[in-house]
């Protein structure tokens, strides 16, 4: 055995022992420095090449490099072994994954707004704009311009909150019909969601404030079939593709012909006489609709020979109660955290 080989064997043997004895990364690092460092043992061997017998000298560098490679590999293995030992401890831990989750501070939009947005989205897709209005309106916009003169019995049907002789909290979103038509020339295609007020005693089905969505389409060639088409589409969008929609004759001073709009009860599908949602009738009342009365078009200076239009007004709370199967309308204003979380 050559002298070099003997020296390297000795170094490697001791190195192997030292690596095996190293118990953590610091100890291992000390071994690296002691053998492979600038003043380490292998470096010492390399420095001694000149003293070797001449025959051994040409290959010495190569032999030493091979040893160094092996030693470095052994160190890497040892490092990995130590690291894994640390992981073993962590991997031995276990928890009860069924423990209740920690709730994130998630936000949400109110169910009334959500339904409103879904309804608006449907109309937006069909080319309608969305306009907002004020909640205090003069009686002109609330009644007179809508073909409800002061003497009209329907006027008292809107049991309104008054601020002054002529100012009131709007009992419906219909003033936006007039405001939009005064501001813009036809064609008009808008929906106008917003808050309304009526003097209703608060109970499980009534609040004195509620939201409506008003729709108005005025253009050439618009007829009742278009009203049925759009509102049928809306109900299917909100409640499901198999929804049926029923139009019944009714009376509103600002539409002629007028209709009440019902949709099939999404809860019982008209299959239960004891259904709590529709009262067994199989239908949910959504609101009023109809062809805009010529007097209303005339009031805003539209030519009734050219333009026809339809309008509708639906209660948004009613849509939301139906959609989420909510038992009591007061939950919308109580905003109990659990209520908001469930519907978020």
């Amino acid at each position, binding site marked *: 055995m050559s002298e070099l080989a003997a020296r390297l064997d000795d170094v490697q043997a001791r190195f192997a022992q030292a690596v095996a004895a190293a118990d953590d990364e610091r100890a291992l690092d000390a071994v690296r420095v002691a053998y492979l460092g600038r003043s380490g043992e292998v470096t010492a061997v390399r420095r001694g090449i000149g003293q070797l017998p001449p025959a051994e000298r040409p290959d010495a560098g190569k032999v030493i490099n091979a040893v160094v490679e092996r030693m470095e590999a052994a160190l890497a293995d040892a490092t990995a072994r130590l690291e894994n030992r640390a992981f073993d401890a962590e991997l031995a831990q276990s928890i009860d994954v069924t423990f209740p989750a920690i709730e994130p501070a998630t936000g949400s939009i109110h169910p009334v707004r959500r339904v409103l947005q879904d309804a608006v989205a449907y109309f937006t897709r069909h080319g309608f704009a969305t306009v907002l209005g004020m909640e205090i309106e003069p009686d002109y916009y609330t009644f007179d311009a809508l073909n409800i003169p002061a003497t009209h019995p329907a006027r008292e049907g809107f049991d309104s909150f008054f601020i002054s002789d002529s100012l009131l909290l709007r009992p419906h979103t219909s003033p936006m019909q007039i405001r939009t038509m005064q501001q813009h020339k036809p064609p*008009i295609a808008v929906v106008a969601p917003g808050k309304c007020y009526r003097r209703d005693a608060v109970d499980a089905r009534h609040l004195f404030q509620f939201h409506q969505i008003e729709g108005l389409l005025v253009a050439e060639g618009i007829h009742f079939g278009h009203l049925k088409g759009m509102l049928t589409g809306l109900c299917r969008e909100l409640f499901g593709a198999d929804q049926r929609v029923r139009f019944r004759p009714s009376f509103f001073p600002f539409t002629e012909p007028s209709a009440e709009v019902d949709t099939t009860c999404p809860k019982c599908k008209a299959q239960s006489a004891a259904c709590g949602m529709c009262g067994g009738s199989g239908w949910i009342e959504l609101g009023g609709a109809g062809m805009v009365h010529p007097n209303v078009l005339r009031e805003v200076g539209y030519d009734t020979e050219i333009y026809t239009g339809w309008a509708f007004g639906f209660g948004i709370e009613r849509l939301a109660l139906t959609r989420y199967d909510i038992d009591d309308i007061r939950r919308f204003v109580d905003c109990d955290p659990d209520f908001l979380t469930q519907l978020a």
Partner: protein
Amino acid sequence: MRVPISWLREYVDLPDDAQHIADRLAMLGFPVEEIAARPVITGVVVGKIVAIEKHPNADRLQVCKVDIGADAPLRIATAATNVAAEQVIPVATIGAQLPHLKIEPRKMRGVESQGMMCSAEELALPAEWFEDGIMQLDPSTPLGANVVELFGLADAVLDVEVTSNRVDAMSVLGLARELSASYGVALRLPSFENPGRDADPPGHAPRVTIESTDCTRFVAQAFDGVRVTAAPAWMRVRLALTGQRPISNLVDVSNYVMLETAQPLHFYDAAQMRDRHLVVRDARPDETIVTLDEVERTLTPQALVVADGDRALGLAGLMGGASSEVRESTTAIVLESANFEGVRVRRMSMQLGLRSEASSRHEKTLAPALADIGAARAAQLLVQMGAHAYRPHAFGAELRTAAPIALAARDVERLLGLRLDATRIARHLEMLGCAVTVHGDALEVTPPAWRRDLAIAADLVEEVARMEGYDAIEPIEPAVPAHAIPSAQYELETQLAATLAGLGYREILSYSLQSPQVMTRVKRAGLTPSREPVEVRNPLSEDQRFLRWALGPGMLEYFARIDTPARVFEIGHVFSNENTVTEIPVLAFGFSVDPIDEPSWRDTNFLRLKGDCEALLRAVCGITVDATRDVRAGLHPGKTAVLMHDGREIANFGKMDPRVTRSFGVRLPVYLCNIFLEHVPEYRIPRYRPPSKFPSTYRDLALVVDLDVTADQVSRTTRRAIGELCLGVRAFDEYRGPQVGEGRKSLAIRATIGRFDATITDEEADAAIARAIDALRDETGATIRT
């Protein structure tokens, strides 16, 4: 209105199924609230007591021989005390089914009884509305006839809703006409001929002076030979089925005619009025009248009365007076069948807090022609009851035929999208009582006298649609024409809501109307509201007295209610009253939070709120606005900031004044931000500035400044002094305490320094920071801590 189907059948042939009829009415625009089924009753026939004797074995029983038109009379024992020979009565024969009883042969104290004579209750009619004991039928009722069929006791009673434009259909005849037109079957009208003799009563002919334009027509007719008694059984049964209590033949006739034709009537006792002369006039100030309900009412000239020469006899269209009420002794009467302006009746009714079946019709303004029809029907019924009818006298405006309405088949198609030919349209309208002439595509339509609601072509189109059925109209999606109506406001609200939800806030809704207690709470906290609240004139309760002037109070009430930390927002309008009523759309968001133990000059929650506010505005306007300290009512005076843009306040935010928080019962500190939606600038597209390709460096400075020097001042000064090499300045720590000294604070800032064209050198950075130190010393009085 409650409508017995059996009564409808008198005028029109209808399907058996009540549900079918109800559905049809609903699709005609008359929704049926309830279908009240009648109990099954069989085997009850008309009988006549031909003989009556005492029961051999029982003092309280009598044994009657009852002829039911069969070969042999029945022997029936009864405990009823109102029986007498010659009475015609309902008899439940053996095998009959009554609501709670099946009739079987049985012995009563040894006498076999072959049936039972029935009371009204046994026929499922309200017992208290009919005579005690056995129900009394008219002597002319055919013996053996089936009582259930005769009186329509089997058919259901519909509770029908009638819209306010169709007062003509607040009547059995009106609804029968609708059904006849819809089913396309004939309508059997009663005669509207007035049987009054062509003569006036001895003494004075009835005379009416109309002094008010609110009385359009007044038909007065005199009757004598009247005998006040019970109305015939058929009439009493019909009234009872509609929910109207039978009173006496006269009262019942007026109710019956009103239910049949919609025209309310009133009878005056001729003996209790002067000269059969009626005056329709405004009430005199403080004039009093005792109405039929025996309440004395004091009137104002807003009330319209029907008076004789001396005093008010009744409230026009609303309720008669007690003084001229018909009574048992009445033998001569004057009939009123009048037409009044609906508004006048409605306002009087509201003012007096008094409603009646009559006013519920008059307040919708009946057609004047109904006055004559109502009088004629009443006269027919009274004559049937043996009264003598004199000539009817009509006062007021002449009856005018309605002006014809021009309608084209094209109008129908234009509004309904339904192509119908003119003859089909004409047929529909004629079935409803219109007179129609057709010229090619054009129709000339004269509405019937009882339909005041038909005035323009669109009204007729609705009639056509009702007759065709709304279901016949095909739903189609319209092609919506292009327009330029903006949706910006809605889109802003939508985006704000979405962003706040993303920031972890939950949207709530609270009441816009508030109790005065909210104001009390604010005042108790030592504050005066910055704005005068808007008051509601007619709240239902004190809880609704004021419109909210800010969203904060509602949010505090919410935090008080849930009492755990929460993050919420609300978008809504607030109202104030300074000379004029103003309404502002506002967004408020905020949180209640567990307090943090930190020095008095630091408020981490405030900075969190500020961070959310900045993030929100970045998202919706693409800009960041510098906050300045200010004071706002309701917010902590030392912890309030406002964001101004173009001279308008976009937002204010801060910790809520702890006095207010406590006054609302909130235990936790609350942080609140108000955003004024009308001041939020339009979204501006932010411009991207690429980072320098060369590494930058930074320098931290620890400054000591006076307490009133702000982080913003220090940053601005630093930025300006460093000039274009400055890539950013940010304050990151603040300290106050004994080491710094009274009135001073330590502020740590980091300035990032770099170039876009080369790597910055240490020398350049040092020179830049030296400029900053000089400027800070000069402009803010800062000293450098080392």
